[in-house]
């Protein structure tokens, strides 16, 4: 059944959506959207490394993104520059270095559009395995660190005082961010991964009154976005990433009506 490229893309996309749902909630809660962007931009460098050394793309992206995250943490400690300036510095310089390296790799034909915006034709059976096994591992680890991560998101001092070790949870979460970018880059493309994390979560925030509900709605929103987006992509021959994100945006706009209703009810 995985012979058809469209079925493969759908299975891969659903796997991505199920993982980006919960992670995206934390990205929204912890205000990490620009951090996600930085990791995603650095992913291009990871892809070029993979081509240069005949390496697995997901693994290479994961390693490079993790290194960039570590560099960021070190720069935050050692310089007086504000966080957003450091993020911008790393995002654009790693993107630039990635593009320069592509320039050197003249012997390989690159599908830049596919890299930036996702390419459903490129999803292989191997990618599906990486997405579902990698994704399951990410979710399992997220479940294990949920308590300290969530508690420190609400209030760092409470979590620290009551013995939850929030710093470790934060470090592990950073690695999970690098991992989700690595496994979803082929589907959504590196320019739009952060959108896949944020938009379904933002939609879910509009219609939820508890953290668990927000996570569930975020997953449902992501799954619907992938289904609608991929069918649109097939029908109108558009890139998969932008189609999925546009579908997510549509759901977000619909969720605004729910807010309007509940505001009216209060008045």
């Amino acid at each position: 059944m995985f012979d058809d490229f469209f079925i493969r893309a759908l299975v891969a996309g659903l796997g991505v959506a199920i993982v980006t749902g919960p992670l995206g909630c934390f990205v929204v809660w912890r205000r990490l959207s620009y951090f996600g962007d930085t990791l995603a931009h650095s992913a291009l460098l990871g892809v070029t490394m993979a081509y240069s050394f005949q390496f697995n793309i997901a693994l290479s992206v994961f390693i490079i993104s993790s290194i960039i995250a570590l560099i960021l943490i070190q720069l935050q400690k050692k310089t007086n520059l504000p966080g957003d300036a450091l993020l911008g510095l790393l995002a654009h310089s790693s993107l630039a270095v990635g593009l320069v390296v592509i320039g050197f790799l003249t012997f390989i034909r690159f599908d830049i559009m596919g890299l930036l915006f996702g390419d459903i034709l490129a999803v292989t059976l191997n990618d599906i395995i990486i997405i579902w096994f990698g994704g399951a591992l990410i979710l399992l680890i997220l479940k294990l660190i949920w308590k300290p991560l969530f508690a420190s998101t609400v209030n760092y001092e409470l979590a620290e005082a009551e013995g939850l070790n929030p710093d470790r949870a934060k470090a592990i979460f950073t690695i999970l961010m690098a991992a989700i970018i690595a496994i979803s880059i082929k589907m959504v493309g590196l320019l739009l991964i952060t959108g896949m994390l944020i938009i379904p979560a933002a939609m879910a925030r509009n219609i939820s009154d508890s953290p668990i509900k927000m996570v569930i709605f975020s997953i449902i929103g992501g799954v619907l976005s992938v289904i609608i987006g991929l069918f649109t992509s097939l029908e109108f021959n558009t890139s998969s990433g932008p189609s999925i994100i546009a579908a997510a945006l549509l759901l977000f706009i619909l969720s605004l009506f729910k807010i309007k209703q509940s505001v009216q009810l209060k008045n």
Partner: protein
Amino acid sequence: MNDNILVKLKNAGFRIKNKWLVQSVSFQVEKGKIVTLIGPNGSGKSTTAKIALGIFKKIEGEVEKYTNKVGYVPQKISIDWTLPLRVSDFMVLTENIKNEDIDEALSLTGVIHLKNKNLGSLSGGEFQRVLLARAISKKPELLVLDEPVQGVDFTGEIALYELIKKISDELNCGILLISHDLHTVMSATDHVVCLNGHVCCSGSPIDVARNNEYKALFGEQASKTLAIYEHKHDHTHSNDGEIKKN
């Protein structure tokens, strides 16, 4: 070694760059005992609590904590309202607690009717009661309460202090309390530490009330009245927190 000790500070201090927030603080909190920190604004009470809790890590001196079952009510808490969070979600923030225990704690602090309300919609006093309920529902061994009744109405304040005393007896937990309410402090506390950037005096409430330095700080009738106290020092503090005798 005393098995009842929950947390012990030995000449503990904390500074940011060269400014001491508090220094040379020594005391211990034992099971079933209430230790109260008093002192004027900026005297290092909250800082001392955070040293005891291990929130501040790069400290001078020593702090030894013998328990991990801690309940904490911070003085200031900023919660980000990008989170959809109900009171019931907040109650299980750091530990999974049985539903009966959640209900019991919320009933004790008088806010059971708010259980399914969004945390952002509570008033200051209601939120304070929820904070206290969350800290006691864990049945902790060590309870650190940094001005736990701020913003609570007058009758509620007395009831909550009685509750704190009762919890200390029932759970046999140690309590580190920070309070401005000298009346409560003197009637319910086992050990008082009077801070002003360092320990001015400490001991049982009666000892402290008889202490000349305490009298100078809080006035003669301080153990019976809610004294509006005038501050007299035998020393001054320079900008870096260093003590100069007058």
